[in-house]
């Protein structure tokens, strides 16, 4: 795949060759068709950004940059500030990653490196089944099962042992940022682990054999495999992060929906996607509607920026690890 990239024709010559009658007609038609499909996707994305931007013009004009930094959200008084929602989105997604990444890597390593195939198959199936559960079901489960467990058995010890940190202070209700993050972690784990599993399975067996032949233990061999798969693993994490940022229903049901910024993980919070889902249907006046659409635009940008940052990080990490590999 990658080698083929060097021989790809420029756009100009590509269109020319596609239109010229020389060569197989079927090939030209097929090429044009695929080009159209790819172009359509680009048009979708650009069109969506344009539509969001044009509909949020009234609020962009009305509030300007203050919309991003405002911490108050009071529709009846037409005061709109997006910062609590941006914070809630980033914080809940970060919690989800912190929990989900080690979990997903563990599942994938077990399935590829350790489990016998009679066990790996059913476990793989079950993990992937988690991805197929509708998010409203996760939300209900969150209210009825997860929140009570966190309230009774997880948050009190956290408050007792780490209460000196501002992260674990405040009243314990089981509804808040931590619960939102945990439920997101459970939702993105099947996605990350499924991709990581494929990545690890694609690492050539010669790598493992070489490591073992040099006297490496199983654990050391696994390290070699993980380093080999690092770019793919990073891609999997980015995919999971994207899902976490955009997830709406399940988070709405457990995060408490309070537009306030608090360092405490026990405190109710609010995400960009949740506030849009909650308030869109009855946002009747224009500036209110426009503000909600601007939140959608911000959600788009947040996803974009986070993705870009993640990609730069991946690029740096893989470069340095490759360099380290060479040096060693």
């Amino acid at each position, binding site marked *: 795949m990658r080698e083929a990239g060097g021989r790809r024709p420029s756009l100009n010559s590509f269109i020319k060759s596609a239109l010229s009658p020389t060569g197989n007609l079927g090939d030209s038609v097929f090429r044009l068709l695929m080009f159209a499909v790819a172009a359509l996707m680009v048009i979708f994305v650009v069109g969506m950004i344009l539509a969001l931007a044009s509909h949020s013009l009234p609020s962009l004009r009305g509030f300007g940059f203050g919309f991003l930094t405002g911490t108050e959200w009071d529709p*009846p008084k037409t005061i709109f500030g997006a910062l609590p929602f941006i914070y809630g989105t980033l914080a809940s997604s970060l919690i989800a990653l912190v929990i989900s990444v080690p979990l997903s890597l563990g599942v994938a390593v077990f399935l590829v490196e350790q489990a016998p195939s009679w066990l790996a198959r059913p476990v793989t199936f079950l993990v992937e089944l988690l991805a197929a559960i509708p998010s409203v079901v996760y939300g209900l489960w969150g209210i009825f099962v997860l929140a009570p467990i966190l309230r009774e058995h997880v948050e009190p010890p956290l408050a007792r042992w780490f209460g000196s940190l501002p992260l674990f202070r405040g*009243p314990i209700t089981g509804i808040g940022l931590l619960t939102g993050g945990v439920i997101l972690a459970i939702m993105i784990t099947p996605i990350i682990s499924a991709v990581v599993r494929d990545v690890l399975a694609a690492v050539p067996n010669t790598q493992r054999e070489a490591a073992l032949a040099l006297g490496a233990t199983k654990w050391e061999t696994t390290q070699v495999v993980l380093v080999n798969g690092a770019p793919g693993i990073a891609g999997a994490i980015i995919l999971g992060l994207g899902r976490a940022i955009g997830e709406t229903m399940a988070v709405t049901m457990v995060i408490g929906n309070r537009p306030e910024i608090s360092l405490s993980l026990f405190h*109710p919070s609010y995400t960009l996607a949740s506030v849009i889902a909650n308030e869109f249907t009855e946002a009747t006046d224009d500036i209110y509607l426009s503000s909600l659409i601007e939140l959608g635009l911000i959600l788009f940008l947040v996803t974009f920026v986070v993705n870009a940052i993640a990609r730069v990080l991946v690029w740096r990490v893989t470069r340095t690890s490759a360099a380290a590999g060479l040096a060693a």
Partner: protein
Amino acid sequence: MRLSNMSLRVFAFFIVAVLIAIAALACNGNKGGGTVKLQGAGATFPNPLYQKWISEFSKATPSVQIDYQSIGSGGGIKQLQAQTVDFGASDAPMTEEELKASPGPVVHIPTVLGAVVITYNVPGVSSALRFSPEVLADIYLGKITKWNDARIHADNPGANLPANDISTVHRSDSSGTTFVFTDYFSKVSSEWKEKVGANKMPKWIGGIGAKGNEGVTGQVKNTPNTIGYVELAYAVQNKLPVALIKNKAGNFVEPTIDGVTAAAAGAIATTPEDLRVSITDADGATVYPISSYTYVLAYQDQKDAAKGKALVDFLWWGIHDGENFAKDLQYAPLPAEIVKRAEAKINSFTSGGKPLR
């Protein structure tokens, strides 16, 4: 790969069948031989009742087809203003600004009544809690923070109230239920009126936001020391613990259908000619104070006489025969006096200057 003759034939047959079906549907739509179609949209709260009304009414009058979509009160008003529906529906009456922004005079027809009830989860409390309006408002204002507060004790002598923090739960989605609830607080607490006010989507002081009646219920049921509010019908169907509220006459009343109808009757003196009225905190010994009307909205002058006639017939049927279905579905029927006044409003519909009834 080549399609066999057989599969080609099947395919052609299928295409022809689809075309015929489309043509048949199109003819049906064009012809409309005597059938009138009405499109309505709005409040979610009365939706179960309206669906019942529509199915019963079309049994009696097969020539009229009605479709109602529960998209929310705000959406109903917006669609009415845009004239994309024949009638709208809303729990809160339209505001002066909304009426001004409409292309013609709008008539409000009250259909039934509903109530907002207080539900709670307080460990150790066995009998129903009682609240004075000011105490309830101060809980939601964050001024009363503990369940064993002296003011809650004063309303509930003998109750075993724990020394725990109160968590308030409110609707995170915009809702007519929230409007009624905050409208009530605005009447009983000047501080609430000043700080928060009556709104479908107010800025809450603290608390947990939950989506829909089911979200509030789930949160309250599963979180000790919480208090929340839901629609009466929802609370009855789910057998939730509900609080007694002190009304204007000083009695603690349980939320019941009769108490809600009594609220409408108690507010008759202050009900204006156009029937746009808030009946929270109404006068009367048996009144349940957090009650409200729900309305059907339509333009006084109907462009299409046939549609206008169908709408008028439907509404007339609704406030008479239709009221009989209300109680079974946990809605409070209109008091007789209001039915009379709604009749007058239905009689005021015209098309091209001619009355429709």
